[in-house]
């Protein structure tokens, strides 16, 4: 699976850590912001657009609180982004919401927790079924 990542300057360190972990797990990483974008609007937009354009790709966004990236990524048509600080939501949002983008706050989650969240997100799959009507609704918006 291809994982497209990006962060602003505040999220740079955690993004690098997450990137390392994912590379060690064998994922193909596309880093949209190797030096950190000027702000989370830029990083979130570019990652969300790239994820929407590439069938099967996932995205990971980091800024200081995560919530800014969440706000922005969901403004891109077809993007479903979850900001998460525990593992259960990371799994469930893949399974139920077909979320393809995960946002993390570097000032909110520590590295051990961030790694588990990311592993749960990239390791889970959308289960379809009844959930598809809701995903179709989200995808019509904007």
């Amino acid at each position, binding site marked *: 699976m291809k994982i497209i990542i990006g962060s602003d300057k505040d999220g740079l360190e955690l993004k690098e850590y997450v990137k390392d972990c994912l590379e060690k797990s064998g994922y193909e990483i596309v880093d949209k912001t190797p030096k950190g974008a000027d702000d989370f609007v830029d990083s979130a937009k570019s990652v969300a657009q790239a994820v929407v354009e590439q069938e099967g790709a996932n995205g990971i966004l980091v800024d200081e609180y995560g919530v800014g990236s969440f706000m922005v990524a969901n403004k891109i048509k077809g993007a479903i982004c979850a900001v998460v600080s525990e593992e259960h939501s990371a799994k469930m949002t893949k399974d139920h919401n077909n979320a393809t983008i995960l946002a993390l706050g570097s000032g909110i989650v520590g590295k051990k927790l961030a790694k588990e969240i990311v592993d749960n997100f990239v390791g889970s799959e959308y289960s379809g079924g009844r959930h598809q*009507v809701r995903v179709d*609704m989200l995808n*019509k918006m904007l």
Partner: protein
Amino acid sequence: MIISIGCDHIVTDLKNHIIEYLEAKGHKIIDNGTYDHIRTHYPIYGKKTADKVASGEADLGIVICGTGVGITTSAAKVKGIRAALVRDITTAKYAKEELNANIIGVGGRICGVGLIENIIDEFLESKYKENFENDKIIEKIDQIVEDDSQVGDEEFFAEFIEKWENGYYPKK
């Protein structure tokens, strides 16, 4: 304050509790449903709740589903909405003070009611800190979506609701 609130069928009891909690503090609530536990679809209530905020009918909005992700994402996809999904008070405060968030989302199967009450308190009580930096970021967020024709369109999801009722989607 006038607060627009919405939820899916997983957390209706929690939404009712929050409405009581906020009414006791003197707020006026617009309850966009859902009103029972019959299976329904979170984007309907996320959009309805957000539409009231985008149109100015409500000051702020609160959305709740199981993880919070689905309903807050649907609210975030309404032009003019800056929706914050949170699990801590720090992020709620930041979202209001720096990003002037106008919708807060929480996961009713993720957060307990004590923490949720405190998150909502912080969100309602914090004030936006107007300054050049914050204004600029907010303008940048708001400019991503140009078209506002979806705001207030109550028939927007009709095609999907009809398909659901006609058995187009599996019920599992």
